[in-house]
């Protein structure tokens, strides 16, 4: 019994020893845990706190309302409205084709929509959502909302859409916005404004929308949103409201724009009208135009093809990027150069035989009037557009002096208008020719520059600007479309200052001679007498014709037999009222024929409305009058022919 008890006590002793060991192990392991908790919760609290906050808080950008574009009278040219779009995030969808097919059973998805979606997919990352349908109506939106659970990765979004209520009107001026692409992102990053574009998916692509992108876009706001593990917003923690973009107020008048565009009818061409005193652009026409609304939510391939491959090239911004030989509209500037250089003083006159020959050469530079104009002084030379007079003048001035003088009028350089993409045109010099063609300059090339032919190329904007500078007696105002920028929040307007680009020192008497010659153009006996008839105000103008294809020496130009697209371009520059001009303009009608008859009437309608508020009566489309110059021409050996 004692042994048993002793054994029992012994056994219990060992058992308790073991229990004690176990207890120690328990304690030490719990201490390990406690240390682990101390490590995580006390020592590295900040680290894990940050991680938890990053998990929880997401910054959601709030896109600002884009600024409006208004004409001078407050007519809306570009605004925004909310539409429902149905968007797919490709990365979240298992079978894209099935999803689209099933969506199509629920709401209408046209093949056009599918094509556009496909294009988007190619251009964007798979984790970005792309619209499969836009402009959903309430019923469609509701239909989808009910079936939302069937379509993971597909969502309805409410997007702010840009809309151009006047459609095609002035689309080259206003421009359009489009989806931000990789190149845009790169540019934005370079400009250091990319962070302001978080959440934005559109950006100005052309016209004013592009030039004033910074002002129009506004400042993106941010919301600190608490999100759950699936990324759904639970509540808004704090927010920083977006600042809407500024509104642009233009100097152009949509009514005037409409008159101008209507006057063009089906014809191609361009027109720019400028207030010479301020540089404000009054109308900016590029014909044909296009509907900018097509571009906003991504243009579909069919429409794109239609626009891009059209022979009429509606997408070209002609006033900025269309280059034409200025033809006879160049003459007033050559005339002024001659007067200023003292080469032609008022009593000076020539007897025009109907052609010009360089000394020592038998090559005849023909006048458009084969019989010649008789006695021609400076003023008459402009009025009747005497080629012979200007051949000689250009010759005497020499290429260097001529080009350096007219460059002051904006030829051969950018006007710095507030639209991007302007090209410089071309004012040739011997150095240029050497660089370009590795050939010396020939005197004959100077001769034809006297009448705006040869290498000389100008954009319609340059012609209008040159006319405005002349009208303003040599004071060059920087052309601009936007006159006021209105704060999107406060409505406060800031005027864009009128900037003097250049003051050309000119003898007022010389300017007067040229202007008088131009006024006579629209009077009986001038090349555009019909344009000035019954105007009620005096118009100073110059007509011009630019040759599209070279006429061979023994060939005659016949407007009626020649292919329509090979016909001459009709040019017309003018300013009015001649004594105190408030409008200066340039019109080009491509393949329009003669400047006075094809381009002049368009200018007249614009001036009538601008100066008198007169709306043109509805009339049958202008039929080109027979050319005064299409008279019989004698063909002699070695001749070149230019028309006007």
């Amino acid at each position, binding site marked *: 019994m004692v042994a048993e008890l002793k*054994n029992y006590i012994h*056994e*219990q002793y*060992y*058992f*308790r020893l*073991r*229990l004690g060991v*176990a*207890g120690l192990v*328990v*304690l030490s*392991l*719990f201490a*390990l*845990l*406690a240390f*682990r*908790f*101390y490590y*995580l*919760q*006390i020592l*590295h*609290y900040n*680290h*894990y*706190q940050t*991680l*938890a*906050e990053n*998990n*929880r808080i997401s910054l959601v950008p709030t896109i600002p309302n884009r600024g409006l574009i208004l004409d001078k009278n407050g007519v809306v040219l570009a605004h925004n409205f909310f539409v429902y779009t149905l968007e797919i995030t490709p990365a979240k969808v298992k079978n894209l084709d099935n999803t689209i097919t099933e969506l199509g059973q629920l709401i209408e998805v046209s093949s056009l929509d599918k094509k556009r979606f496909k294009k988007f997919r190619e251009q964007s990352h798979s984790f970005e959502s792309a619209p499969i349908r836009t402009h959903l109506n309430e019923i469609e939106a509701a239909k989808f909302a009910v079936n939302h659970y069937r379509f993971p990765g597909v969502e309805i979004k409410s997007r702010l859409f840009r809309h151009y209520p006047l459609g095609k009107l002035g689309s080259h001026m206003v421009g359009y916005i489009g989806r931000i692409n990789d190149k845009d992102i790169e540019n934005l990053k370079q400009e250091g404004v990319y962070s302001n574009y978080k959440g934005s998916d559109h950006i100005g692509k052309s016209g004013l929308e592009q030039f004033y992108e910074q002002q129009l876009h506004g400042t993106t706001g941010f919301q600190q949103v*608490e*999100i*759950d*593990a*699936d990324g759904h917003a*639970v509540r808004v923690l704090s927010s920083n409201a977006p600042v809407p973009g500024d509104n642009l107020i233009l100097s152009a008048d949509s009514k005037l724009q409409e008159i101008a565009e209507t006057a063009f009818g089906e014809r191609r061409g361009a027109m720019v009208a400028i207030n010479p005193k301020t540089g404000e652009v009054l109308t900016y026409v590029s014909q044909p135009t296009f509907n900018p609304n097509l571009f906003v939510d991504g243009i579909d391939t069919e429409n794109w093809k239609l626009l891009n491959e059209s022979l009429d090239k509606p997408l070209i911004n002609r006033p900025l990027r269309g280059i034409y030989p200025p033809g006879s509209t160049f003459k007033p500037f050559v005339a002024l150069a001659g007067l200023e250089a003292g080469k032609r003083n008022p009593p000076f006159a020539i007897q025009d035989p109907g052609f010009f020959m360089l000394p020592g050469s038998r090559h005849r530079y023909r006048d458009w009037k084969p019989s010649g104009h008789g006695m021609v002084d400076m003023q008459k030379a402009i009025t009747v557009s005497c080629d012979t007079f200007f051949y000689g003048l250009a010759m005497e001035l020499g290429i260097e002096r001529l080009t350096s003088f007219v460059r002051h009028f904006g030829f051969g350089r950018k006007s710095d208008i507030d639209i991007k993409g302007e090209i410089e045109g071309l004012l040739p010099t011997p150095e240029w020719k050497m660089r370009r063609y590795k050939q010396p300059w020939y005197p004959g090339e100077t001769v034809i520059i006297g009448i705006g032919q040869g290498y000389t190329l100008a954009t319609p904007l340059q012609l209008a600007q040159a006319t405005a500078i002349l009208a303003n007696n040599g004071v060059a105002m920087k052309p601009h479309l936007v006159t006021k920028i209105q704060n999107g929040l406060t409505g406060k307007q800031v005027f864009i200052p009128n900037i003097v680009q250049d003051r050309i020192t000119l003898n007022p008497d010389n300017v007067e001679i040229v202007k008088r010659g131009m006024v006579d153009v629209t009077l009986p006996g001038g090349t555009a007498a019909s344009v000035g008839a019954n105007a009620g105000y005096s118009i100073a103008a110059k007509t011009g014709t630019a040759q599209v294809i070279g006429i061979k020496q023994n060939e005659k130009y016949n407007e009626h037999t020649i292919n329509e697209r090979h016909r001459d371009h009709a040019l017309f520059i003018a300013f009015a009222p001649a004594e105190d001009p408030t409008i200066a303009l340039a019109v080009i009608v491509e393949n329009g024929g003669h400047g006075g008859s094809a381009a002049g009437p368009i200018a007249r309608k614009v001036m009538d409305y601008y100066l008198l508020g007169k709306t043109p009566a509805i009339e049958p489309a202008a039929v080109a009058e027979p050319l005064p110059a299409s008279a019989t021409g004698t063909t002699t050996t070695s001749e070149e022919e230019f028309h006007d």
Partner: protein
Amino acid sequence: MACLFFALLLSLFVLYSASGQDFSRIYAQGVNVAVALGAMWLAANISPLNLERAARPLYILGLLLLIGVALFGTISHGARRWLNLGFMQIQPSELMRIAVPMMLAWYFASREGKPSASNFVVGSVLLAIPVALIMKQPDLGTSLLIASSGFYVLFLAGLSWRFLLIASASLLALMPVFWSLLHEYQRKRIEILFDPTQDPLGAGYHTIQAIIAIGSGGGAGKGWLNGTQTQLDFLPERTTDFIFAVFSEEFGFLGNMLLLTLFSLIIARGLVIASQAQNTFSRLLAGSITLNFFSYAFVNMGMVSGILPVVGVPLPLISYGGTSLVTLYLGFGILMSIHTHKKLVAT
């Protein structure tokens, strides 16, 4: 007892938060607790003598059921753990959590005197059979914990220190051999088990989010119902295996210390009961049950806080779930019975 009830109350509060303030969850857990308490009361009223008698039949029944599972068990989540008896589904491995220590305690109690080496061999075999069966289901967590509960009996029964040393040394030595035998993907899986950052969106996600939850709880916690990781769904399995992360996030380091203290007190009480028990069977059983409770608590908290690989083990008293709760309270019931019967046997 007081500690037990405090833990119980705590569990309901944490669960309320973890389930997203879902009262039906609380209600369901309430029912579970009621059943478990009933089981505890029943167990507390069975004398250790009867328990000792029941040990063999219970163990054999458990084994049969496990074999049944292996042959006819229903498969869910890729594992064969449940046996459909027609009227109800049971998980025999849960029964074994009690039956295995009982059986081993009976075995060593029936061998008078200092157990011989052969006794330990037999004991090991008795332990290895159910462990192997459960491991095959596969249920690694449970099988390891049952193995440890059996090991506690062996240890308390007096397994020689020398053997323990040799066994653990050889286990360590064999580790590289095992490693070389594994497939590449198996190694990868084990690596992720120990280093969750290797696969942050896959297998490692649970642990990473849990560690963030714990760490961001800080000293005093974010407050009840204010845990962002919990309330915003970042934390997976937060009512069951990962409920400790919820608790940690909302009550912080202080809460964790409280919980550890609570567990320590329960374990201490269990060990005292074991040391006071009057016969070998009660003593071994009480020790094993208590230490097994510790195993669960340690493994769970260890895996949630990222110092142990993730194995599916609930946090005792706190996690949501019926069966494990019942088993746990049965264990406590047995402890109570042993405590109340210590004097009766002594005479």
